[in-house]
């Protein structure tokens, strides 16, 4: 497991996190006794069926939701508890599932939005840093003046990642970013994300349904149970970095996948059946 030296901070510890929603009196337990640790600079993937509380967890860390019980530590300092709900901030930036670039701003305006709004950089300095980052992340600087609506979904996703990294976040939160993509663009995005993670080592929380994607990208894969969400098991990914697609055919990879696939499949079936029972 590689701990990138530059990432001095960004360590995250989730201690017996619990979340209960109360829509109209029917208490829904989304998270219960959810515990795991992510070292600074580590790429952690969370895999689980829909409705297992993955997004709830992400929302709590990002500051869009609050804990009912338990606590979350950021760099060993208590950060979120049932009493304290941290506001969203540039130290924990989210890349959203359906993309959230501002369609009315150009690519460049989107990317410099964070630092300029926080007055961390002057407009000029932000522009230079943005162009440099865009160039290093797949030559996106050529699209600086264009609107998100004119880009392919893959390019939009890359710009959104750059917009997040511009704020030097302690934790980068990715909420199923490649869900709507087909094999071709998904494979390209995996390669891109791994390159960007090598260039800018940050702690990453990657939420996904796709076990294969999780193992291929992450240092550690956490499998969540269906609701109420708990960590069912953790898998240390033994593939070295930089990762390449032919590793997907290696024995080490297949062995790891076999260990976890049965669990993931079982949770998926339970969620599927419960989903249909609830609709009946």
């Amino acid at each position, binding site marked *: 497991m590689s701990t990138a030296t530059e990432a001095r901070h960004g360590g995250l510890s989730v201690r017996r996190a619990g979340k209960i929603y109360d829509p109209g009196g029917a208490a829904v337990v989304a998270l219960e006794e959810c515990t795991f640790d992510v070292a600074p600079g580590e790429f952690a993937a969370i895999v689980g069926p829909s409705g297992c509380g993955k997004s709830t967890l992400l929302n709590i860390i990002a500051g869009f939701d609050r804990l009912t019980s338990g606590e979350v530590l950021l760099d060993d300092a208590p950060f979120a508890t049932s009493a304290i709900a941290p506001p969203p901030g540039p130290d924990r930036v989210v890349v959203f599932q359906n993309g959230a670039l501002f369609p009315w701003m150009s690519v460049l305006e989107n990317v410099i939005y964070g630092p300029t709004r926080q007055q961390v950089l002057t407009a000029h300095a932000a522009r230079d840093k943005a162009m440099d980052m865009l160039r290093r992340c797949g030559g996106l600087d050529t699209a600086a003046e264009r609107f998100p609506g004119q880009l392919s979904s893959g390019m939009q996703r890359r710009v959104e990642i750059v917009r997040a990294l511009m704020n030097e976040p302690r934790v980068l939160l990715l909420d199923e970013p490649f869900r*709507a993509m*087909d094999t*071709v663009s998904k494979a390209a995005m995996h390669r891109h994300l791994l390159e960007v993670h090598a260039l800018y080592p940050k702690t990453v929380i990657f939420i996904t349904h796709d076990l294969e994607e999780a193992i291929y990208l992450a240092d550690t894969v956490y499998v969540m149970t269906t609701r109420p969400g708990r960590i069912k098991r953790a898998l240390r990914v033994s593939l070295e970095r930089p990762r390449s697609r032919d590793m997907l*055919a290696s024995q080490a990879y*297949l062995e790891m996948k076999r260990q976890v696939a049965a669990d993931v*499949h079982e949770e998926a079936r339970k*969620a599927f059946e419960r989903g*249909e029972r609830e*609709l009946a």
Partner: protein
Amino acid sequence: MSELTSPSSGHIRVDGVSKRFAQADGGGTVALEDCSFTVEPGKLTVLMGPSGCGKSTLAYLLAGYLDLDVGRVTIDGVPVQGSGPDRMLVFQETALWPWMSVVENVMFGPLARGVMSRQDARREALELLAQFGLGGFGERYPKHLSGGMKRRAELAQALINRPKVMILDEPLRGLDVMTRELMQEYYMQLFERTHCTTLFITSELEEAIFLADRLLFMSPAPGRIIETMEVDLPHPRGFETMETARYLEIKRRATDVLNQSGAFQEV
């Protein structure tokens, strides 16, 4: 499971089909160019290609929704004329009629052609829905069903008409990976029960290999069939088939084909 289709019929031959869409300003885009292939009766043929390569156009041509101006399409030797219940297409976006209950959706075909009384149609529709795990949902409106359930209702809606050929246009697109894997298993079990000649269209490689008896690769637009590959994975196939060495071997060869076809460059 009542015998739904006769596996011997449903042989499709497609020769030199091209399709050009004229645009208002006089220009035009070529969706398909000299597309030729066959679909064996009783087999599950998968059509695999990058997004935007004309797969849906081909599906609409086979179903008779678009006019065939260049090339020939025959089913069991008979040239295709317009659309009919012998070739049922399941669209990418669910096309269940939202204002009809699920059972009414399924009964529509037999009643429209007057081949069944209302009671027989209802009985058979409910029986079919039950076999597809939608027993209690007959009277519900489609919008009350989940994505996977709507797909199964659409299959019932098509299969009640005993089609010679089932055409499925990326039916699992948009479902999350886990539901998708469950539905792939479901289709396989359904095919292994009915052996209805099927043309399954997808842009997902693993899905294509898992389902296919025969795999057709389409080039990027304008779409042509550039490679055919027999998939001799044993039946019944299940979730664990994807772990076997044979599957990985086929997957490696298929990936090479996709790379050569230039399908992998960023669209």
